[in-house]
């Protein structure tokens, strides 16, 4: 059992861990609500069943009280007939006289609905008078009947017999009527002699049935009437019972005390309410089949269950909506985080829901924003670091060049070649002025070309005019700007690699032109050239930086700088064949003055 519980608890825990917060919330709320309603429903049902039972008992009791009252009134009316017959007709009158017979006929006619016959018998059971006028059957011996004996034995009382067929008088229509006999002891005066006798009133079943017939108890219940021995006086299915087609538990009911009882009769549970009819000893019995009660209770329980289910349905629906409302922001936040994890940029983190979730969303949003800024800072720092590094590398050119130029100036001065020395120093000064350009990164294209021209002037003097140079600017490129110091390293490379073997026939050309949105500067020499793979390797980032004069480091720096500043679609392209010369294409964005100014502003911290 313990192991089973542990396993079950483990499964629930595992399931719980895979469930969404919405499912946990909705299921928990629903389970608690349904459990609460079930408890409430069961307690209400029990309470209802008990109350219904009590109401049923009270209802049966009330109905029986009413029937009892009606029956009592009816029996009293019969007793009044007996009293009237005795005190107004028979007593102190000679019953053999016509006036008595007349009085009896009159009384009978007045009450024929409830009375079958009225008769007076002498002490031997001989018929003294009767109404309606009839003769005693030859087989009838009234003195042998219980009603006669009781009246003679207990003179002060009325006596009600059990139900029986009236068999005293001849009936020309061969009718046999079921009656209840009311008998009493009377004093008869005949021929001046007073003697005891018995006055008999035979009540018809019709009167009794009328009192009981229209009485209905709840749930198909009914009322029947028995005498003290349990003999049926009235039953709604009396003839059926007499014919053996139906049965009743009347003998047992005769033993019940007044009140409500439960009995099981012929496989049926019944609620039986008993009420004794005062002086007669008769009992009114109300029977309500419990099956019918149960049917009603079942209907009510079903209705109650429907209410509970409706409430559960409504609560479940509301729970699902509320839990969705609570958990949706969490779910959306989770989705946003998943997108962030997947590397998507510009993820919109919604700040919705209740306070805690909004706070959490806000924190995550702030964190992501901070992260983005930090990343941008890092990238910018990296870019600047790289740029600085390249600037440093670029500045590495200057000492060699300066040393060589100044050495040439010294040599020319010593040789008395003052004009050339002055020209060289002038170009050098101009070169440096443009190179500095007040610290700007982007300079006018014409300055860049002028810078190249001064550089070539210096180098031509140094290399004793072994080569010549032509620098041209296409009108389409006039007014454009470019990255500073992009042409000079290419020229340096052309001089040291291409012009090494030149004998006054070297030619280096620089041509700048606009191609769409690009500025293309082409540097061409007719020097030694190189194999295409060597030309391609010049820009190889993995190639070690061996610092030699015109080793190509400057060329690679130019390529890196262009790509760092403008993107990978820009940079250098080498076209070279051995003994054919080399052509280097510098591709830059075509920057006008405004674009250059914008870039310059971005550089300003």
């Amino acid at each position, binding site marked *: 059992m313990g192991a089973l519980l542990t396993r079950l608890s483990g499964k629930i825990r595992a399931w719980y861990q895979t469930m969404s917060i*919405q499912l946990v919330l909705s299921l928990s709320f629903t389970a608690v609500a349904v459990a609460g309603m079930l408890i409430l429903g069961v307690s209400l049902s029990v309470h209802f069943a008990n109350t219904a039972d009590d109401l049923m008992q009270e209802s049966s009791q009330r109905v029986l009280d009413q029937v009892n009252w009606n029956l009592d009134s009816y029996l009293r009316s019969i007793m009044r007939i007996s009293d009237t017959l005795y005190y107004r007709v028979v007593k102190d009158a000679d019953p053999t006289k016509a006036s008595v017979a007349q009085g009896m006929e009159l009384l009978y006619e007045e009450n024929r609905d409830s009375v079958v016959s009225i008769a007076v018998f002498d002490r031997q059971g001989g018929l003294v008078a009767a109404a309606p006028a009839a003769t005693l059957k030859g087989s009838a011996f009234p003195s042998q009947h219980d009603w006669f004996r009781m009246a003679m034995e207990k003179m002060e009382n009325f006596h009600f017999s059990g139900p029986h067929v009236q068999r005293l008088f001849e009936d020309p229509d*061969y009718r046999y009527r*079921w009656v209840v006999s009311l008998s009493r002891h009377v004093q008869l005066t005949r021929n001046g002699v007073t003697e005891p006798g018995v006055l008999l009133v035979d009540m018809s079943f019709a009167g009794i049935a009328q009192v009981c017939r229209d009485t209905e108890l709840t749930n198909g219940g009914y009322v029947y009437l028995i005498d003290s021995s349990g003999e049926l006086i009235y039953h709604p299915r009396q003839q059926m019972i007499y*014919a053996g087609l139906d049965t009743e538990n009347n003998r047992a009911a005769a033993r019940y005390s007044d009140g409500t009882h439960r009995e099981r009769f012929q496989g049926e549970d019944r609620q039986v309410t008993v009420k004794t009819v005062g002086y007669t000893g008769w009992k009114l019995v109300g029977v309500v089949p419990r099956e019918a009660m149960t049917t009603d209770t079942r209907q009510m329980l*079903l209705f109650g269950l429907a209410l509970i*289910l409706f409430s559960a349905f409504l609560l*479940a629906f509301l729970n*699902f909506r509320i839990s969705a409302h609570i958990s949706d922001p969490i779910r959306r936040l989770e989705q946003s985080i998943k997108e962030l994890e997947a590397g998507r940029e510009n993820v919109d983190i919604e700040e919705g829901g209740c306070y805690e979730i909004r706070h959490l969303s806000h924190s995550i949003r702030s964190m992501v924003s901070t992260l983005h800024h930090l990343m941008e800072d890092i990238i910018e720092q990296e870019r600047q670091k790289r740029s600085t590094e390249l600037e440093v590398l670029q500045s590495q050119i200057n000492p060699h060049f300066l040393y060589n130029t100044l050495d040439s100036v010294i040599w020319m001065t010593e040789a008395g070649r003052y004009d050339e020395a002055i020209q060289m120093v002038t170009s050098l000064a101009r070169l440096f002025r443009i190179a500095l350009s007040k610290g700007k990164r982007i300079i006018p294209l014409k300055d860049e070309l002028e810078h190249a021209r001064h550089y070539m002037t210096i180098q031509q003097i140094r290399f004793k005019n072994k080569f010549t140079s032509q620098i041209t600017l296409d009108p389409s490129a006039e007014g454009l700007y470019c990255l500073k110091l992009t042409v000079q390293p290419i020229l340096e490379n052309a001089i040291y690699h291409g012009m090494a073997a030149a004998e006054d026939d070297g030619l280096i050309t620089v041509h700048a032109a606009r191609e769409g949105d690009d500025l293309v500067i082409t540097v061409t020499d007719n020097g030694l050239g190189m194999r295409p793979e060597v030309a391609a390797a010049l820009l190889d980032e993995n190639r070690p930086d061996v610092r030699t004069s015109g080793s190509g480091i400057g060329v690679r720096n130019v390529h890196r700088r262009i790509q760092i500043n403008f993107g990978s679609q820009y940079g250098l392209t080498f076209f070279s064949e051995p003994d054919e010369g080399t052509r280097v294409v510098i591709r830059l964005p075509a920057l006008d003055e405004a674009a250059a100014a914008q870039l310059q502003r971005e550089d300003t911290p």
Partner: protein
Amino acid sequence: MKETRTAMIQRGILAVLGAALLLTLVLPQLPRREKKAAPLPISVLMRESDTTAWSSARLGMEEAAGALGVELRFLTPTTANNGAEQNQLARREAENGAKALVIIPAEPESLGREMAGWGSHCPVVSVESALEGSVLSVTPDNAQVGRAAAEELLADWTGGAVLLLETGGRGSGVSQRLEAARVRLSQAGVPCIQRRADAARLNESLSGLLRETEARWVMTFGPLATAQAAAGKETSGWTQPLYGAGVTMRVATALERGTVTAAVAWSDYAAGYLAVQGAAQAARGQEPAKEAVPFLVVRGDEIYAPENEKLLFPVTY
């Protein structure tokens, strides 16, 4: 994925709760939706034009009709025990839409043959006599009734012939009772004289038969025959002991007066009730319970015994 699963679980829970709710709402309405069945038309064909002898049976039939939702139509022939007319009536009722017939056959054999030729299937319940082709015969065991009556006579028999009055058609319950009684009496060595007679006219014809046969004992086997024989005895003054079968109010009076010595009695009320009940069950496609009606033999001084009272005298208001 998880969202879909959650939504599916929630929809499942709502669907289950909704279905249960609908079920609990619909279930209590089902009994109320049962349409109140239209009254079941059942025709009752008597075998005698004077039906006073069958008043108790009729009470039972009407009680059953009220309880079982049956509409009864009582039909009597123009003359008593007119088998041909009854056969025609039965065929007409069967063809005119009666859902079942309750018949007290005048001539069971010919009616059985007639029923075999009916085009429509109409369940028939017979009363008093067994009937071939009927779904139920509500009758006491007629042979036992005849034997019981014979035994009662044998108990009193002191010698002389017994006149057995055959008042029923061929194969009827009356004939079966007579035959059983005759066999029993013959076994006991009692001489029997059998005569066919019209039950309704026995009050007039019986004295002549007695003179003709010089019988010292008389037996009748139907309620009307017994009542008419008793009436004849009271008016004509013949003194032969009379034994009968079937107790009507007139027979009860005759028993009380000693005109009828003994009679075999059963509850006509119960027979009538069971007949209509069986017919209604058969019309509704149910199998009616088959059980012989119990009977007893009563003599004049026993009729007011409490249980006999209940059996013999119906409660009327």
